[in-house]
């Protein structure tokens, strides 16, 4: 295994994060603060507690997931798309590096960035609400797995996209609506029966539900199912990437 290569890819990607540290941190902090002002204080004060949890507190896991999902996808997809776009991918393809080493470098960096971001968001949230995490170990587990799974998904999008529109279309048209409709800001028990059933087809529901359980022991679906769904998503992404690598999809002619 070419560990040196994994290390340089990883640190090169992380360097991009540090170079734009202000945007990287300021943007999630500001948006989280805005959500808390609007949903937590302004609207939230008129909303009853949900399953014994105040609304301001209830939205913390969903808000964190919203940022983690979109940032994991955007970081990982941009990371591999950019060398394709500028042509510097030639160096990766001609280097003694396997596809899996490339993957570990890029996805590892994207997942790390998301993890840092999630920590910042949770710290910001703690300024507005009194955050007590019931199961810190499970919380971290869900968070790490979600960061990795969605960075893998982002990597797939980055490989698939051959222009900037394609790079943006899935996060904008699919992921953001799924996060909003996946119970990030409400419990699905608040929905009519039919919509509760429809929501069960939304994979993000399981992520948010499991993540929320680790905070408040309150969930829309059982934790076991949530965990299973995270692993299933992870397995699907790995299978797709394995196929892409085997066939050289959009990388090699």
């Amino acid at each position: 295994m070419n560990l040196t290569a994994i290390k340089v890819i990883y640190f090169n990607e992380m360097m991009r994060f540090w170079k734009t540290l202000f945007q990287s941190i300021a943007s999630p902090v500001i948006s989280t603060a805005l959500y808390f002002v609007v949903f937590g204080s302004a609207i939230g004060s008129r909303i009853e507690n949900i399953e014994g949890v105040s609304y301001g507190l209830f939205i913390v896991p969903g808000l964190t997931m919203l940022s983690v999902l979109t940032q994991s996808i955007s970081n990982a997809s941009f990371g591999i798309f950019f060398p394709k776009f500028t042509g510097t991918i030639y160096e990766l393809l001609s280097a003694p590096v396997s596809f899996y080493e490339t993957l570990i470098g890029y996805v590892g960096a994207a997942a790390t960035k998301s993890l840092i971001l999630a920590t910042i968001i949770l710290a910001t949230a703690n300024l507005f609400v009194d955050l007590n995490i019931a199961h810190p170990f499970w919380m971290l587990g869900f968070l790490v797995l979600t960061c990795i799974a969605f960075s893998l998904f982002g990597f797939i999008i980055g490989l698939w996209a051959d222009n900037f529109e394609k790079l943006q279309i899935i996060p904008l048209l699919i992921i953001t609506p799924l996060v909003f409709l996946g119970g990030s800001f409400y419990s699905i028990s608040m929905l009519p029966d039919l919509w509760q059933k429809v929501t069960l087809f939304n994979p993000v529901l399981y992520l948010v539900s499991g993540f929320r359980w680790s905070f408040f022991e309150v969930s829309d679906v059982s934790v076991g199912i949530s965990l299973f769904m995270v692993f299933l998503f992870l397995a699907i992404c790995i299978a797709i990437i394995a196929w892409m690598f085997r066939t050289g999809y959009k990388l090699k002619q």
Partner: protein
Amino acid sequence: MDSIISIKALSKTYKSGFEALKTVDLEINRGEILALLGPNGAGKTTLISTICGIISPSSGSVSVDGFDIIKDFRKTRSMIGLVPQELTLGAFDTVWGTVRFSRGLFGAKRDDAYLEQLLKDLSLFDKKDSEIRALSGGMKRRVLIAKALSHQPKVLFLDEPTAGVDVELRKDMWKIVNKLRNQGVTIILTTHYIEEAEEIADRVGVISNGELLLVEKKDELMQSLGKKQLVIDLKEPVKQIPSSLEEYNIELNDSGTQISYTYVVKDATADVSEILNKITNSGLLLKDLKVEQSSLEDIFVDLVKEES
């Protein structure tokens, strides 16, 4: 001679159906400079990219120092450095950062002293902390060379290295190429500038339409395919060539003041002194004479014309 790259029946057909390489066989000798000549779209870059691992071959095999480029890709790729045709660099990286990245990517241990010397040799050291977007085109080309040499490769591919490059950089580049040759690095370059191939290459390969038309030592190629032309200025103009010279392929110019005789260098039947004697004896008065040799460019143009 010891071969370092062995290409056997290599073919590449793109998904579009375009056959870029048609059963290419080629042995590249250790330590030589091989120039690949060919018109645009001939298959030069496809050939290089396949050996480097950027393009998957459709059939055939390539080995580098005895290792297969697919089965033992780690070994073969760590021996190869590639300077691509396009100026493909990350705009926001610094020169030092990108060169160190390349060295690490190829699995080589950190060696700042080597990289510093490399940047000095390429007149890049004072720009080492500059971002690449701030560099001129020529400087970017130097950075690409530094990246390719960052892991001390045994084989260096230069794909059109002097396209759009000023005279100074071109001279520097050939100095570096010579230095690398002296260190035993095998160099394969593609170029449109035939005079460059003529100047620095040991052997010349000509590719056209995905086929390797020939690979020969430059000197032998010049001898076997090169033509010479004996041009004689006459003291007094003549209306036609004397009958005693009719059996030779001698041409008279329009003004009747110059005759020329074209012959293939390796053609043993052409005896220049005999022809000169005949010309003198024919009564023509010679004013001056010169011999012109065809360049590699003429040979290349003739070959590609024949092929098409």
